[in-house]
């Protein structure tokens, strides 16, 4: 019964089931090294985001601006390096500071105004995306910038962010595993993790118990922006440039991965490991459909049905467990 209590159970079972289905349907193409790398590499950027978004959602908040943040941080990095001629690492430092500022800004807006974070970050989603397109067109006349590989310091960055350490599996997968390990450890083993759970479960009670609720929330928003920044930097190095439109829909994909992973939309309950499995499912379905030969037209249908199935499953298991307890 304790296994059933784990929020990530459905996602883990779902991931295994989906792997078996695609292995049976697509055969060697899916289980081969190239096939495995194809879905792991596709899961990883979403996985990095999902770890941070899971912590935020367990803390009781949404961040819809993470997708726009990927576009904004990538463009910021490219404007500094290929447009303004900076070296790579100083530009990364400024990009990180910029991302943290946006995240903390989101957090302060939510904490100070008491408005739902869904609305506040929905506004940031549009403002950030619009600013990214506007500023990059204003400065360069374009919305796609390339040439980051010529920036001084880019060689070390290529090793760190864009190498393929294991077969065709890229560095981004290792970053994802590292982020996931840290996320799981923080939530399960640290005081801050307890604060996140308490803040998301019942903010008033948490405040009475001495949890710095506002600080927890602001830190979580900073964390999601930072995760988006990491994804943006990795993708910029890996794909040689940035695009103002990059990261569209990632806000929803991250939420989908987290919800499939068993985290409640209401906060206070959830799992980082579940979000990792959620991202795995997402990548396996996206890539598995291509390998199996199902046309792209159907991908979104699968996505919706999968979300619904996972939520129904989670719902059912939780109800049964709490009913029996």
């Amino acid at each position, binding site marked *: 019964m304790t296994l059933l209590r784990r929020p990530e159970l459905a996602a883990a079972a779902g991931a295994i089931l989906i792997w078996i289905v695609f292995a049976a349907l697509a055969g060697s193409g899916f289980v081969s090294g190239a096939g495995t790398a194809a879905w792991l590499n596709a899961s990883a950027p979403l996985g990095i985001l999902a770890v941070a978004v899971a912590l935020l959602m367990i803390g009781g908040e949404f961040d819809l601006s993470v997708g726009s943040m990927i576009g904004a941080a990538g463009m910021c990095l490219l404007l500094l390096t290929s447009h303004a001629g900076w070296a790579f690492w100083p530009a990364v430092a400024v990009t990180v500071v910029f991302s943290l500022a946006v995240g903390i800004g989101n957090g302060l807006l939510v904490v100070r105004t008491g408005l739902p974070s869904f609305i506040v970050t929905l506004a940031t989603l549009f403002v950030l995306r619009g600013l990214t397109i506007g500023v990059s067109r204003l400065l360069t006349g374009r919305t796609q910038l390339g040439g980051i590989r010529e920036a001084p310091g880019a060689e070390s960055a290529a090793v760190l962010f864009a190498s393929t350490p294991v077969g065709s599996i890229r560095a981004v997968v290792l970053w994802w595993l590292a982020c996931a390990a840290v996320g799981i450890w923080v939530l399960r083993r640290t005081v801050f993790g307890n604060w996140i759970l308490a803040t998301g479960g019942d903010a008033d009670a948490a405040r009475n118990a001495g949890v710095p609720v506002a600080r927890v929330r602001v830190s979580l928003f900073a964390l999601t922006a930072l995760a988006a920044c990491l994804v943006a930097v990795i993708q910029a190095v890996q794909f040689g440039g940035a695009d103002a439109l990059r990261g569209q829909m990632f806000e929803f994909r991250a939420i989908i991965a987290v919800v499939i992973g068993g985290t409640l939309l209401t906060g206070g309950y959830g799992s980082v490991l579940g979000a990792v499995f959620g991202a795995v499912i997402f990548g396996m379905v996206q890539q598995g459909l291509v390998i199996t030969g199902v046309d792209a037209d159907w991908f979104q249908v699968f996505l919706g049905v999968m979300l619904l199935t996972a939520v129904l499953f989670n719902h059912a298991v939780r109800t*049964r467990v709490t009913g029996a307890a």
Partner: protein
Amino acid sequence: MRGRSGGPGARLIRAGHTSLAAIAPAMGWLLVWTAVGCAAPDTAGDREAREGLRIVAVTHGQPADPFWSVVSNGLRAAGRDLGVRVEYQAPSTFDMVEMSDLIDAAAASRPAGLVVSIPDPDALGGAIGRAVEAGIPVISINSGSEASRALGALAHVGQTEYEAGYGAGERMAEGGVRRAICVNQEVGNLGLDLRCSGFGDALRAAGAQVRILAVELADPEGTRQRVGAALRSDPDVDGILALATIAAEPMLQAVEEAGRGGTVTAATFDLSPEVLAAVRDGRMAFAIDQQQYLQGYLPVVLLTQYRETGTMPGGGEVVRTGPGFVTAETAESVMAWTREGVR
């Protein structure tokens, strides 16, 4: 969402949960099987020995884009005609990272041939290179003619922008245009700049003058105003070219408001129902059609032949699908083909 109390599951409804838990995984299975059924091409009746051939196309055209629907129809028609299996993939948003992932997945499935568009060679070069390295024949379509060869593609099927603009310029020069305007809604976009410079070179070669008028893509009213002002300030202008259908309608309005409908030869890149009607009614001289149906159809033919006979036209040159020109004589039949989804 914030400040909600109560433990996990406290608010959940207790009804029918046991059966739900049992049904959920089954639903997943069922869905995968049905979709695979939907996707399997209708090759049952084919007596050809090509059933093993499978060609995958990965483009940046989103599933519901009318332009790319025509490309996709071309791909499927070629698959039906030749008896090969054709699959069409595209990212759900304009996201080159996702598109690169899709190319990797397509390559992992070891198809007989791969068809890709290359809107961003920097971002897609890696994935295309990996597919080529894995020994998969690749043909690029639509965008990326300049990068195609360097990335290892066997051929590029598309419209080259400079030549298309040049063709438009020649046509206007033949019609007696002496002083023309190229209306560019996105100055700085390399492809559009090339269209204008090809247009200008052709007209200048015939002794005519050309200037570029920059307008805003997202501002049709501003486009109308600027074109109107340009026409009023220069009464000798007798030719005008729009680079996209979105600028064509405001451009036409400006020409007619200035009372120059009879003297100015107007033309545009690309087709839309409005543009076709304007060409049919004689309000516009011609529309430039890149005939993207062929960008779907031809690569399947080329890849099938490459597999079976090792042939490939032109040794890596661009196979041009455009410019085709729609004029008053052909507009009516093109409208019918548009309804069939082939133009």
